[in-house]
């Protein structure tokens, strides 16, 4: 019989990482994601799978413990919320420079600063455009349901190790705190040390006579070598852009207008699509599941079909820039968002779509 449970998003991803064979979690509590650490602690992971769960002394310590664990080829992760993720940026940049795989979770709250503990999506730029220093990108997964919070634990680890990259699950307070039905998979066993040695020859598992010493460092003072390192990183990001784009189309086939939204905003827009159809408006929703790589090609295609796009995001307008880059002026793109922890309602976003594109209104296409 299928194992189906009612879980909070935060609990679902915690159960997901255990079942995905995670070796270690290092984190520090912060609302609205403290249930991740609580759930892992309460579930006695050491006894269940041997997974280590450790409450570190700070976010900075957490990310550097992840750095160490990843260097040894282990499936390791941390989670936090916006202010905590800001503290971790140095460690994330170091992991980008050393191409170490890990899973990161940001259950976003409103900022800037300590802001609020209510849901927000204002960390898009930080996550997608590189929050730390240097030319790097994370794979960014944006769950829109509790089931996806669970599923993206395994998917995140798989992608991280496939590409030797850091994967960020970009969630928000609403997805983290709400409860929905979750279907759970069988436990995947953790890799043994012997398996790690074979599978990940780059890991620092102890030098053997048949190979050079593995050194994990992001420092190379020779600019010629450093440029090559960077060029190779960029090749990897390009490959990911070409092969790992994920999105969901909801009622797009005959759409004349389009919502573009991810995470909890996408759920709100999904309802707005249904309300719009009741009002006789042919509206659809494109939901990016990966924010990097962004569904640029799909949006460019839809730009030939629809008369206008409304990017809905709980921010002052961050993802909308990527939507505009994708459509490259082919169709008007507007942004609507609420700030500081307020969530828009379905009829509210539908009204904005109507006012922008359908009611008598002259708009200037965006030109920069």
């Amino acid at each position: 019989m299928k194992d189906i449970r009612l879980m909070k998003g935060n609990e679902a991803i915690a159960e997901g990482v255990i079942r995905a064979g995670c070796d270690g979690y290092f984190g520090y509590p912060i609302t609205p994601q403290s249930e991740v650490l609580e759930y892992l602690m309460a579930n006695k992971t050491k006894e269940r799978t041997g997974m280590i769960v450790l409450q570190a002394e700070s976010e900075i310590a957490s990310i550097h413990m992840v750095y160490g664990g990843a260097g040894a080829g282990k499936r390791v992760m941390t989670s936090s919320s916006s202010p905590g993720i800001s503290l971790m940026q140095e460690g994330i940049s170091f992991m980008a420079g050393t191409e170490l795989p890990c899973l990161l979770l940001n259950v976003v709250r409103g900022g800037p600063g300590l802001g609020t503990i209510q849901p927000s999506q204002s960390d898009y730029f930080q996550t997608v455009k590189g929050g730390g220093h240097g030319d790097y990108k994370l794979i960014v997964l944006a769950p829109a349901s509790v089931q996806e919070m669970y599923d993206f634990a395994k998917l995140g680890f798989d992608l991280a190790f496939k590409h030797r990259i850091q994967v960020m699950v970009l969630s928000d307070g609403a997805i983290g705190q709400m409860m929905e039905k979750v279907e759970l998979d069988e436990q995947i066993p953790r890799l043994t040390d012997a398996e790690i040695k074979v599978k990940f020859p780059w890991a620092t598992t102890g030098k053997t006579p048949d190979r050079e010493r593995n050194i994990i460092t992001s420092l190379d003072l020779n600019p010629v070598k450093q440029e090559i390192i960077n060029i190779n990183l960029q090749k990897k990001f390009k490959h990911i852009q070409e092969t790992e784009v994920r999105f969901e189309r909801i009622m797009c086939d005959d759409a004349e207008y389009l919502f573009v939204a991810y995470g909890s905003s996408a759920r709100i827009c999904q309802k707005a699509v249904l309300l719009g159809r009741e009002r006789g408006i042919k509206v659809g929703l494109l939901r990016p599941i990966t924010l990097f790589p962004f569904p640029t090609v799909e949006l460019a295609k839809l730009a030939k079909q629809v008369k206008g796009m409304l990017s809905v995001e709980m921010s002052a307008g961050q993802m909308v820039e990527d939507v505009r880059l994708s459509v490259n002026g082919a169709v008007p793109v507007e942004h609507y968002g609420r700030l500081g922890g307020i969530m828009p309602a379905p009829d509210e976003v539908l009204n904005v779509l109507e006012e922008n594109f359908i009611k008598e209104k002259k708009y200037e296409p965006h030109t920069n």
Partner: protein
Amino acid sequence: MTEEIIIAGFGGQGVLSMGKILAYSGMMQNKEVSWFPSYGPEMRGGTANVTVIISDERISSPILNKFDTAIILNQQSMDKFEDSVKKGGILIYDPNGITRHPNRTDINIYTIDASDEASKLGLAKVFNMFVLGGFLKLKPLIEPEYMRKGLEKSLPLRHHGMIPENEKAIEKGKEIIKAKYLVN
């Protein structure tokens, strides 16, 4: 069928757990469910509310501003949510502590003296189940056997001894809910 419900009251009245039991029971009956709480400053004293959706179809937005049913247990929540009941929808409230009664004429209004009844029967701990019973009388979405399964799933094992009291409260709640104003 899709039923969109808001339950709102003081923290400690069992608002969130009432929603959780309802959602769990719905899930046991093979329905799609979502439970979205206010987890913010409200949780740290003051008011608490939860949006519960029970549906036969995939649930779109778990976050709503219009509801089929509002279950209201204090004055602040009345002020906040009276207007968010859909036209023709239902508002259920416990008049205990309510100083300004609802005055809409386009929705069905019911009262339930749950806190009085609960303390009279010495069942104050399961006050919220009286209210849930009242709701289920009006909207029999969940079969009793699945309510029981929902209680078993959502209550921690150490409280399973309380399940008969919970069920008694649900049944009593069905008896004591009263229509106050009905749309023709």
